[in-house]
C-alpha cells in the first residue's frame, strides 16, 4: 500500500527499487516538466531493457534512449520543439524497425485513461486509414483491434490499456503525503500518473498539507496514490517548470549539439550525468545558483 509514514525519499533510493526490464512512464512533454532527475539517476544506476512510455516524448526519454537503457518506446510523437528533434530516439527508430510503437497524443492519452479507469480497452476514431495504424498492426498486433459499435454500427479502433510498472511525474507542489498540484498545462499527466502500478512524484517544493487544503480543487494527484515523493528544486532543468523556471536555452542547445551524433552523446552523459553524483552537483556544473537565478520565473509571466 502506497501509504508509509515517511514517503519522502531520495531519487537514488527510489531508482534502486526499479528492476531491469520495467515499464516506466515519464511525465515530461518536449522541454517542459521533464523527469530529468529521474532519467539521470536511472542512467547512473545503469538500468537496462526498459520499456518507456510517454505521450509526447521529450528530453527525459531522449536521455534514457541515448544512454542505451531503453528496449521499447511507446509514444505519441515528440521533439525538443525549436531546439531540434529527439535525436537519440530518432536514431533508435531509424536503426531498429518496430523499436517504437508510435501512436498519437490523444491515443496514448486514451491508453493511459483506460489503464487509470481499470478498463482493458477503449474505443477511438483516431489513427484510422493511416500508416500509423498500419505500422501498429505490423509491430503491435496484440494492442489494437477494430470493432463496430454495437449501438451505432460505426467502426472504431480499440486501444489496449497501458498500465506502466512505475510512473514519474514532475510537479510544482506536493505535501509529505504526495498530494500534488500542477500549474500550467497538464497534458496527460493525470491519466498517466493514475494508470501505473506505482507512482512517484518529483516536486519543486514540499509544502504543508494545510497549503493543499486551501485549494483542494487543484489537487491533481491525491497522496494515497503516491508511493514516494522526491523533493528536488530545479529537478526538471534544463526543461521548464511553469511558475518556477524557464527552460535553459543554452543548455538545451548544448544538449542537442551532443545528441545530434551518436559519437558525441557519451561525452554529454559522462560529463553531466556519470560525472556528477546527484542533481545538486549537476546543477552546480551547469551554472549553479547564478544560472538558476537567471532562468527563474518572473511572477506574472510564470517563465
Amino acid at each position, binding site marked *: 500500500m502506497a501509504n508509509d509514514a515517511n514517503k519522502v525519499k531520495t531519487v537514488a533510493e527510489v531508482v534502486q527499487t526499479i528492476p531491469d526490464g520495467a515499464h516506466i512512464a515519464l511525465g515530461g*512533454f*518536449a*522541454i*517542459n516538466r521533464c523527469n530529468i532527475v529521474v532519467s539521470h539517476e536511472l542512467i547512473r544506476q545503469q538500468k537496462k531493457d526498459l520499456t518507456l512510455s510517454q*505521450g*509526447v516524448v*521529450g528530453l527525459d526519454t531522449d536521455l534514457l534512449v541515448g544512454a542505451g537503457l531503453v528496449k521499447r518506446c511507446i*509514444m*505519441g*510523437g*515528440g*521533439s525538443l*520543439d*525549436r*531546439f531540434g*528533434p529527439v535525436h537519440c*530516439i*530518432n536514431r533508435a*527508430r*531509424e536503426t531498429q524497425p518496430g523499436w517504437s510503437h*508510435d*501512436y*498519437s*497524443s*490523444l*491515443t496514448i*492519452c*486514451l491508453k493511459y*485513461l483506460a489503464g487509470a479507469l481499470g478498463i482493458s480497452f477503449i474505443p*477511438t*476514431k*483516431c*489513427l*484510422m*486509414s*493511416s*500508416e*500509423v495504424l498500419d505500422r501498429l498492426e505490423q509491430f503491435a498486433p496484440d494492442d489494437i483491434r477494430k470493432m463496430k459499435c454495437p449501438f451505432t454500427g460505426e*467502426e472504431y479502433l480499440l486501444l489496449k490499456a497501458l498500465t506502466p510498472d512505475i510512473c514519474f511525474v514532475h510537479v510544482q507542489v506536493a505535501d509529505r503525503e504526495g498530494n500534488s498540484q500542477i*500549474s*500550467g*498545462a*497538464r*497534458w*496527460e*499527466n*493525470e*491519466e498517466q500518473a493514475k494508470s501505473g502500478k506505482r507512482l512517484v512524484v518529483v516536486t519543486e517544493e514540499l509544502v504543508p498539507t494545510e497549503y493543499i487544503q486551501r485549494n483542494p480543487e487543484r489537487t491533481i494527484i491525491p497522496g494515497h496514490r503516491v508511493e514516494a515523493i522526491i523533493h528536488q528544486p530545479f529537478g526538471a532543468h534544463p526543461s*521548464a517548470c*511553469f511558475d518556477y523556471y*524557464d*527552460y535553459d536555452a543554452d543548455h538545451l542547445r548544448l544538449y542537442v549539439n551532443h545528441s545530434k551524433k551518436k559519437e558525441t552523446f557519451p561525452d554529454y552523459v559522462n560529463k553531466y550525468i556519470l560525472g556528477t553524483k546527484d542533481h545538486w552537483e549537476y546543477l552546480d556544473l551547469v551554472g549553479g545558483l547564478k544560472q538558476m537565478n537567471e532562468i527563474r*520565473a518572473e511572477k506574472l*509571466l*510564470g*517563465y
Partner: protein
Amino acid sequence: MAAVRATEIMVAAASRELRDGEVVVVGIGLPLMACFLAKRTHAPRLISLSEIGVINSDAKDTPVGVADPRNFYRATCRSSFLDIMGLNLHRGIVDVGVLGALEADGFGNINTTLIKDEEGNIRYWNGSAGGNDTASLAKRVILIVRHDKRKLPKTLAHLTSPGFVQGRSREQLSLRGGGPSRLITDKAVIGFDPQTHQATLVSVHPEIELADVVESTGFELKIPGDVKVTALPTPEDLRLLREELDPNDLYLGRRKARS
C-alpha cells in the same frame, strides 16, 4: 517597410481562412502565427486550443513550441490532452485544425514522421503528436507546407495523418471531420475538389509564376480557369507579425521559414 516575405504571405493567407468565433486546434510555428494574427485582426472571438492543455493563449513573447510556458500566458483555461483532444476534438466540436508537415500529397494526406532520401535512407522527425488526431477529427483542416517537389510529392514517405486517402471520402475512410480544406504554401493556396478530393489550385502568390507552381509540385495539381492572385498581407498584418507576434523572426525569418 521591408519586402513581404513568403512566410508572411503564408501566415496571412492561412489567417484569412479562419472565421471569427471558430474553435481552432493549432500546432506550433506558422499555424500558431496564423491563428494569433486572425485573432488580432478579423477574428477577435476565435478560440485557440493547444493540445498540451491551453485555451486562448495570449502569448506576450513568441513561444518556441507547444510546451513553451510562453504559450500558457493569459490563457482562460489550462487543462489537459484529455480535455483539448478528447472532450473537444474527439467530441467533434473543433471547427478547424491548422497543421504543418514535412510532406503533403495531392489528397491532403500529410507526413510528419520521417523523410526518405534518394537512396531510401530514412530519417525520423516528430511523428504524429496531435497531428493525426486533428486530421482525423477536425471539421476542416488547413495545411501549411513549404512548396517544393520533395515536400509535395505524389507519394508520401509515410502517411501520418489522413486527408482523403487515395481520393476516398471521409466516410469510406472511417474518419470523422471534413478533411483538408486548404493547403497553403509559400507559392500558392490549394484547395480540394469537393467531388474528387483532388488538389486544385485556388490562388498563386504575387510574383510567383503559375508554371513555377506546377513545376515545383510533385503531385498532380488541377488548374481551374479562375486561378486568382493571393492577397498580400495588409500593412497592419505585417506590423503585427513583425513587431508583436514574431519580433525575433523565430518562425518568419527567411532561413527559418520551415513549417
